[in-house]
């Protein structure tokens, strides 16, 4: 196995496409190093992306935030502007693992590891995040909900990697939140996760809503019908019940030791409703 740490996107792509064997990109390494250790992977080349400036910084302007795919969870939390504008996204990212894991783990890795239970992904889906991808054919964009196709499988082509995430700017009357169910209070994998982003007008009517779900299907889901159930309502009990019904209808979970199908479907509705309530509090603030 060889290790390279290029300083430009172009150099990274050149290394990836030239490699005859298996090449892997490295960001925080909190999944990759475990996979190396347990012999799930045996790459011939590791390309460390952390020396590429664009991947390591958070910038903001009138168009919103651009978060480098190799920025750590701890750095997200320390960014006051991002935490104020997108508290749900930052909370979701900070639920991944321990303080030590937060020192390294990245949004890019959480997405591209392609776990259905990745905590940051439903929150990013709710927030309408888009990813900037770089590869042999140059740059392209995807909505975050279109990146993961199945467990361990993404829409990235050979030689491509995620460079950054774009989030809209903070707007008055909007709020986001992410909640998950785990059987303890910390250090666990989501049994169900739900991210919600809401916008309300001065009269308190919902003008836009997006609901993202994790761990209830083969990939993180955008549940358009759940958002539609809220738009035009005052987010009253009846509207929330419609949203809950749409969430439960979208769930196609597996049975495993962490939760049965029936349990996950039930809890998805509960968690999505609570995330809605938290997002609404933030939209009103």
């Amino acid at each position, binding site marked *: 196995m*060889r*290790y390279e740490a290029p300083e430009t996107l172009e150099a990274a792509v050149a290394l990836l496409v030239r490699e005859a064997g298996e090449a892997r990109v490295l960001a925080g390494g909190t999944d990759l190093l475990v996979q*190396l250790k347990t012999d799930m992977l045996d790459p011939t080349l590791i390309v460390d992306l952390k020396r590429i400036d664009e991947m390591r910084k958070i910038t903001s302007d009138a168009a919103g935030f651009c978060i480098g795919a190799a920025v750590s969870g701890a750095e997200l939390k320390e960014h006051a502007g991002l935490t104020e504008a997108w508290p749900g996204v930052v909370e979701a990212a900070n639920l991944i*693992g*321990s*303080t*030590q*894991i937060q020192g390294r783990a990245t949004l890019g890795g959480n997405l591209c590891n392609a776990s259905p239970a990745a905590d940051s992904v439903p929150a990013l889906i709710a927030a309408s995040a888009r990813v900037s991808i770089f590869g042999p054919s140059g740059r392209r964009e995807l909505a975050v909900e279109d990146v993961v196709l199945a467990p361990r499988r993404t829409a990235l082509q050979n030689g491509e990697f995620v460079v950054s995430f774009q989030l809209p700017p903070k707007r008055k009357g909007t709020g986001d939140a992410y909640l998950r169910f785990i059987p303890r209070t910390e250090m666990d994998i989501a049994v169900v996760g739900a991210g919600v982003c809401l916008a309300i007008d001065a009269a308190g009517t919902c003008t836009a809503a997006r609901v993202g779900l994790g761990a209830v299907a083969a990939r993180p889901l955008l549940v358009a019908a759940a958002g539609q159930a809220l738009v035009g309502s005052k987010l009253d009990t009846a509207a929330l019940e419609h949203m809950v019904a749409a969430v439960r209808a979208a769930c196609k979970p597996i049975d495993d030791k962490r939760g049965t199908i029936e349990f996950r479907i039930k809890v998805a509705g509960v968690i999505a409703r609570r995330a809605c309530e938290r997002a609404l509090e933030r939209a009103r603030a």
Partner: protein
Amino acid sequence: MAKTHVAFHVNGDPVEVLCEPQSTLLDVLRDELELTGTKEGCSTGDCGACSVTVDGRLICSCLMLGVEAAGKSVGTIEGLSSQSAAGEVLHPLQQKFLEHHALQCGICTPGFLIASKALLDRNPDPSETEVRYWLAGNLCRCTGYDKIVRAVMDAAADLRKA
């Protein structure tokens, strides 16, 4: 296999090693630099025994490649105490761990101390809840955690007076 020359700092001192690309920072610290205070537990980022700081940031050294350390500043348990004319002086956290009996077998202790110091460097007055959540990535099978949490709270109180 080709080794890479890697230069970085450990506890303020410059070091240079020849590193195999698959070696973790933990391997490099223990086997190349013979800094065996940092312990290997699970090797998968779950137990926190291998906690170190890299450029001030708390991480698991089992989840970082040694070659990634190039140009970085690494902090390990060997750098926690200080030297005086009378000899080695324990850090207040180390002293409080002794006073509160916050260790038994000791394997988790360097990781707990490094993680606790990283907390107090950022937050000199943490609540008990903050201490418990911050240390959730450090596992101890001897103490039941209460003594560790009390030692950290007590050390924080002493450091605030200093």
